[in-house]
């Protein structure tokens, strides 16, 4: 039973790791991240208004 459980957990972990890696590469890798600097924050918060959020 224990060997079976170890196999099942190891398999689930491997699939999970693969799925997480795919999600990361597709949507969250550095290439998908916006470059944010102090100047960008200043522009975002203290200069031009964010558009399209008026209600």
């Amino acid at each position: 039973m224990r060997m079976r459980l170890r196999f099942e957990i190891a398999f689930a972990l491997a699939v999970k790791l693969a799925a997480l890696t795919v999600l990361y590469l597709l949507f969250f890798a550095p290439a998908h991240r916006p470059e944010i600097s102090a100047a960008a924050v200043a522009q975002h918060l203290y200069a031009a208004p964010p558009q399209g959020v008026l209600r």
Partner: protein
Amino acid sequence: MIDPGTVELSRLQFGLTAMYHFLFVPLTIGLSVLLAIMESVYVMTGRTIWRDMTRFWGVLFGINFAMGVATGITMEFQFGTNWAYYSQYVGDIFGAPLAIEGLMAFFLEATFVGLFFFGWDKMSKVGHLTATWLLALGTNLSALWILIANGWMQHPVGAAFNFHTMRMEVTSFYDVLFNPVAQAKFVHTVSAGYVTGAMFVLAISAWFLLRGRYPELAKRSMTVAASFGLASALSVVVLGDESGYTASQNQKMKLAAIEADWQTEAPPASFTVFGFPDVKDRTTRFAIRVPWVLGLIATRSVDEEVPGIVNLVADNAQRIKRGIAAYGALETLRVHPDDTAANAAFMTNERNLGYALLLKRYTDKVVDATPAQIEKAAWDTVPGVAALFWAFRFMVAFGFYFIALFAFAFYLSARRRLDRHGWFLRLALWSLPLPWLSSELGWFVAEYGRQPWTIDGVLPTFLSASSVSAGTVWTSLLGFVVFYSALAVVELYLMVKYVRIGPSLGSSAAPRRAAPAAE
């Protein structure tokens, strides 16, 4: 440019992943301590049934740990991509406890998980027990560091805004660490985890007794769960009261929204047990109130007011005006960093700078905001009253139900009659999902009640999100839903399978079968 759809989708994605991750966390926290208690009894008494119990519940702990581990890392993915402005603005502070959690607590936990599972035949009894307690310690420390980070979002202490770097920076790590909101949240959350672990053991043991399987193991497990669960359920309520008190000191609007407390009452304020909050008319219909109770709980006095929503909105309108002064001074300082008058004006009003940012929804010229825009922004500081009102009441009702259930289980255990009442065993079994439900409700109250801020009073949520496209967030959200749904199916499959298989009673003389529990 920020798309409001992106902001809402990013919130939905973060909320869903956080709530999914928290399906695993409370069971890990609770079961780790229960394992340590069971193994301690084994080491002290030498009775092998306690070792069998530890190993059986350890298998279920292991499944939960393996399925849950790394489900929280997706939230960290999102910080950099969906919440880039947030990460840049407060990352220096918020990132520190997250990093410490990874380096200190998670590594400790992961190391001792390995020793727990593979060390049974390789370590001395006391050595293995030490590893199990350190596993429980690591699990609880993980929660501590995460809640220090979250507590800072609720009550940002020990930090100041640096206009040269356009970031919040730590001024006192001690204050961040011993933030009263974080400490209150930690003990409340961990106690809720203990209740979850205790309910898990109680419910599955009840199932064994209903089927007449492993009665000796099940009754002993129920005894541990009943006593630990009762102590934990009482702690949740007492420590939740501390959380309420810290909210009354630091997040008055959240408290007022939870209570649908529209107008400031003469102290001590009454507590609304039941009612229907009417946001449009700013009143609570069919309210059933208990005099004094809210005042006593929230202020711990009979002569302090609990401010109502309307009054807090008026206060916040004043804070917005002071924030406009800080905003104007900041604009000057960005051009003339040595302007002493602007520096003095900024320092005087810095605490309200975040409130001025609420105006960015309505105007590009914050310093020229009209009274109507200021009033709108002030009303934006009110979170969703009806949802908070009901979520809180259901959470509290579950809390009192857990006390009653564990108290009765404790009574039956003391009378050695745990297997005598089939209705109670079925009730215990059906109660299994409730701790998860109440934990999720608790998180909803904490996080939805923080709106419209990501960092309370400092950074509005709508300015924290990145300028990514809604399509990208939709697609990644879909990916998460598919991934997490599959993971949930695997978790349930493995849990049910290994519960059905039951423990290996290798060396204990306990019978595997008995007559099913009495009806």
